[in-house]
């Protein structure tokens, strides 16, 4: 991970979606997700429409579908929950392949599955096309209170330090004959967690002081550029507006 620049879900290439300022992407994703969530669950066509919209974004952003599908598996616990619902739900029941299923539960399962999946896909597309730093900059431009962006900046920075220090400690141990198969691994882990925390903290503290020594006052210097233009907003608005139209048509139909 390159010093808070990239993150594991970021796809490092160029596309029209990548180039959009982060703030318009955040707002578009949020509005899209809200439309998805308020759509009544039995409007099946609407959800198909939303999926098509996301496929459109995926094509423009040049995100490989397989890559996205693999990342989407973090939703799995919820899919499992969804599968359980038809069995555990109340009310009217139907019988299918010898199983007694609750109708409300089936609807609930579909609801969680459809809305959950669409939400995860939208968020993944946002993550794939936005670096951590752009995201923070976007939040900053959206007037997110500075404490959050400040804590988040340090958090991303420290994630690197934690990973880096954990790696250094591992190398140091290995070089001195440590064989992680030994049983006292647990003890080493316990000692390690505390030591890692202190060590990373003190390193991070020194880094922070070095930043302060060079005039840091809570805000990273903004890269040149003024943020989103009207054209950017218009372009990104297509997604939530299209979703809104689909929802409206589905409800009215």
């Amino acid at each position, binding site marked *: 991970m390159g010093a808070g620049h990239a993150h594991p879900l970021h796809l490092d290439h160029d596309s029209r979606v990548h180039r959009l300022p982060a703030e318009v992407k955040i707002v578009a994703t949020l509005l899209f997700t809200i439309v998805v969530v308020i759509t009544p669950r039995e409007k099946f066509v609407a959800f198909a429409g939303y999926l098509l919209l996301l496929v459109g974004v995926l094509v423009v952003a040049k995100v490989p579908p397989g890559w996205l599908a693999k990342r989407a598996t973090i939703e799995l*616990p919820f899919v499992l929950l969804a599968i359980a619902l038809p069995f555990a739900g109340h009310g009217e029941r139907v019988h299918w392949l010898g199983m007694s299923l609750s109708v409300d539960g089936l609807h609930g399962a579909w609801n969680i599955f459809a809305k959950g999946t669409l939400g995860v896909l939208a*968020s993944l597309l946002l993550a794939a096309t936005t670096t951590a730093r752009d995201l923070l900059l976007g939040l900053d431009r959206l007037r997110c209170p500075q404490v959050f962006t*400040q*804590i988040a*900046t340090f958090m991303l920075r420290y994630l690197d330090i*934690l990973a880096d220090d954990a790696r250094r400690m591992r190398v140091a141990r290995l070089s001195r004959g440590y064989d992680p198969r030994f049983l006292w691994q647990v003890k080493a882990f316990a000692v390690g967690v505390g030591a890692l925390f202190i060590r990373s903290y*003190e390193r991070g*503290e020194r880094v922070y002081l070095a930043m302060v020594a060079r005039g840091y006052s*809570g805000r990273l210097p903004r890269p040149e550029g003024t943020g989103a233009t009207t054209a950017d907003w218009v372009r990104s608005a297509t997604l939530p507006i299209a979703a809104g139209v689909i929802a409206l048509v589905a409800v009215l139909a």
Partner: protein
Amino acid sequence: MNGVAMHIANGIVNAQVSAIFAAIAAAALAICVWRGRADLDDRLAPMAGLVAAFIFAVQMLNFQVLPGVSGHLLGGTLAVVLVGPWVGALCVSTVLIIQCLLFADGGLTALGLNITNMAVVGTAAGYLLVAGLLRVLPKTPRGVAITAFVASVVSVVVASQAFVLEYALGGTTELNLTTIAGTMAAAHVLIGIGEGLIAAVTVATVARVRPDLVYALRRFRKTASPSPKPAVPAPAVGGAA
């Protein structure tokens, strides 16, 4: 049934209840921002970032608690002990916001629910216990470790019950609430024990090596040995720190 990983996804709780809790979370965080500013000095700023990063890292450890039941650590108590309740709540919510936006973990529309459970309820419960326990327990690394352990277990369970409440108000499918409450509580007692152990080890190490960094001990230290440093001027810090 499956013990829900604590990050609620889109579509589990209906839109109205999600909106109500988003408003509650926003109000609570506004208070934290206001109260936390005074705390966020030179020393606490990097600590807050590290606590957030640490919580972020431990939240990635997903525990298989029982067959088919998994959950992960929350970190609220650790945050309270090291950076205090206000900044602690801000740390946990920052983690949740970043996880939601950059790691697609937890639904965007469920952010208010998640923040309420983990950042507000979990942290508040942890804080009350820490404050209470430290009155009676010794202010030593061991005492702080025990405090952190107990407070972690309780706060995790309390936070999990907040989910049950939300589900009762706006669950999209009718389920037997006592079953959910029972399963969630059982699963989270175990999660809480795991979390408590990590929190206890970490806090004990910090208390031994850098006692000055443990927020929960500051109050007691001040009376013991008056520090020459003047109190941080509250308003001046606002923009800068």
